[in-house]
């Protein structure tokens, strides 16, 4: 069963081709890595999938629904969650509120019930709080629920971002450099965390990462991009031994 199919997706910024002829098939439960040098179009790819940019060519089907042209919140409501390369938390809000906000699309009360605090309001709000606290507990952030997000140390901000992305109960989770700025010990911890949430929430995960330790350690398949073009797709072993990939990363190998 495929969850995400990208077909001949392309995107240009002015004359610059950021992503070209990108094809991807993700099955339910996959854990796939996207790697490539800086400027290869990895984050643009995430922005295309989540609707920040509208792909200029091609189609992206998520659970059989065309998502090119949909607004980011509509795509998020279809259950695609993501994190950001540069942490984009709601900095001045509490840790709990960061997670609560991401429940927006799954909250069923309407604006009148919100204005009058009647009807489904009480039940739904309680459900949001319970679910948010459960998520924070999974990420060991419970004791910080009332802390302002910006006061958290860097590593915990990264964790909170993943918790917030899980609050929209995603089926597909996009992680944009989750290990950026982490030390080897923290990366090990993160690898365990990704594996465990994948199992617990039955996630399909697509992640961008520069830390080869993490990519080679947990990804089942790897997609290599360079200047918007797909260089190679395959298992970690195949990618590691692929001469084109080595060339892109290390420069031309003298013959």
């Amino acid at each position, binding site marked *: 069963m495929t969850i995400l199919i990208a077909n001949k997706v392309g995107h240009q910024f002015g004359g610059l081709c950021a992503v070209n002829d990108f094809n991807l098939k993700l099955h339910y439960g996959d854990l796939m890595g996207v790697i490539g040098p800086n400027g290869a179009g990895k984050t643009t790819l995430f922005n295309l999938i989540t609707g*920040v940019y509208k792909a200029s060519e091609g189609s992206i089907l998520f659970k059989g629904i065309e998502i090119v042209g949909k607004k980011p*919140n509509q795509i*998020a409501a279809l259950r695609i969650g993501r994190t950001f390369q540069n942490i984009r*938390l*709601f900095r001045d*809000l509490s840790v709990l509120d960061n997670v609560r906000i991401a429940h*927006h699309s799954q909250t069923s009360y309407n604006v009148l019930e*919100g204005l009058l605090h009647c009807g489904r309001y*009480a039940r739904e709000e309680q459900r949001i709080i319970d679910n948010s606290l459960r998520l924070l507990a999974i990420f060991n952030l419970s004791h910080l629920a009332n802390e302002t997000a910006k006061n958290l140390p860097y590593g915990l901000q990264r964790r909170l971002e993943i918790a917030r992305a899980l609050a929209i109960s995603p089926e597909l989770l996009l992680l944009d450099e989750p290990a950026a700025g982490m030390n080897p010990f923290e990366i090990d911890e993160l690898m365990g965390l990704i594996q465990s949430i994948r199992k617990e929430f039955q996630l399909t995960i697509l992640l961008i990462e520069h830390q080869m330790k993490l990519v080679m350690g947990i990804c089942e398949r790897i997609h290599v991009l360079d200047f918007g073009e797909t260089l190679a797709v395959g298992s970690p072993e195949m990618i590691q031994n692929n001469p084109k990939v080595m060339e892109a990363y290390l420069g031309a190998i003298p013959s």
Partner: protein
Amino acid sequence: MMVLLKQRWDALLESAWLVPLLLVIGFGLAFAIPEYHLLSVYIQLILMYIGINIILATSLNLVNGYMGEFSLAHAGFMAVGAYTSVLLTMKVFPVADFPFLFPCAVLIGGLVAALLGMIVAIPSFKVRGDYLAIITLAFLMIVKSMIENIDAIGGPRGMSGIMKLTTLPWVFFWATTLLWMIRNFIYSKYGRGVLAIREDEIASDLMSVNTQQVKFFAFMLSSFCAGIAGALFAHLLQFISPRIFDITKSTDILIMVYLGGIASIGGSILGATIFTVLLEILRPSTMAALLSWLPPFIFTPLNDYVISHLGIWRMVIMPLILILVMLYWPRGIMGLREFRGFIPRRDKQVHPHNFLHEATNNDNSDRQ
């Protein structure tokens, strides 16, 4: 002993019946004061202005404080509410025979203002910050010049002979109802969406917040309240003209919001009250009456030079207060904090601090 008193005081502030009790007392007083002439007519008038200003400040705070936009259109929404309701009470509704039609006229004034608020919400989907401020300013000018050019509603001369229908109980009723609704809105998924938009609009969109819908509702609620405040204002002043609803009116409301503190209902209540009272005290006649207990050899020269020129000086003093507040007290009195009584029980339990979102002094942004 002191500790015990403090505990008692905290328990009192915590108790669930404090706010309902204050509401009942307030409503009782609102009826009793005009009925038994407990306070002078002048003080009653000021109380009504305070109520109207509280509605205005709190509703503007929704857009300027909670959402972090900068709207100057509030006086325009007021004008729409005022003119709509005045037309209804003067030309359509036989209010003299059926007094209950007055709240209907006020409500319709608010609804028409909300419709226009919807129109202002649309540009906010595309632009933010300074650009949106200019658009709202343009909207205010359009409303003003439209009214000036329609002769049927008095044009630049305005409308006079409006019945005095706004009473203290009505002001109290509308102020509490609207404040309750704004507070409910803020402590709902829509209110959290509004806060998220202030923090990071793209991130909130990606976290499934329907930003356009949230902005729509926030602008509509804000302008609805402004329209109702305008309707009450018109039936209190008994005279309206386009000049009343120009940019200075919007600025007055801005001063109340920023003095009281952004993103705080309690702050807006304080800001509106302080502003209104201060403006009254700075009237030459009020100041003279307040200082008349001074011995004549002090009072007479003071009156000759200072108090009699206060009418001009208060237009200097109020903006000066705004500048000083912005420089030395940018959060205002209650910025980003809230009275505990206003926070719903469920939110209080999960956020045990006295804050909507904790205002910390140690900004650790350099940790990034």
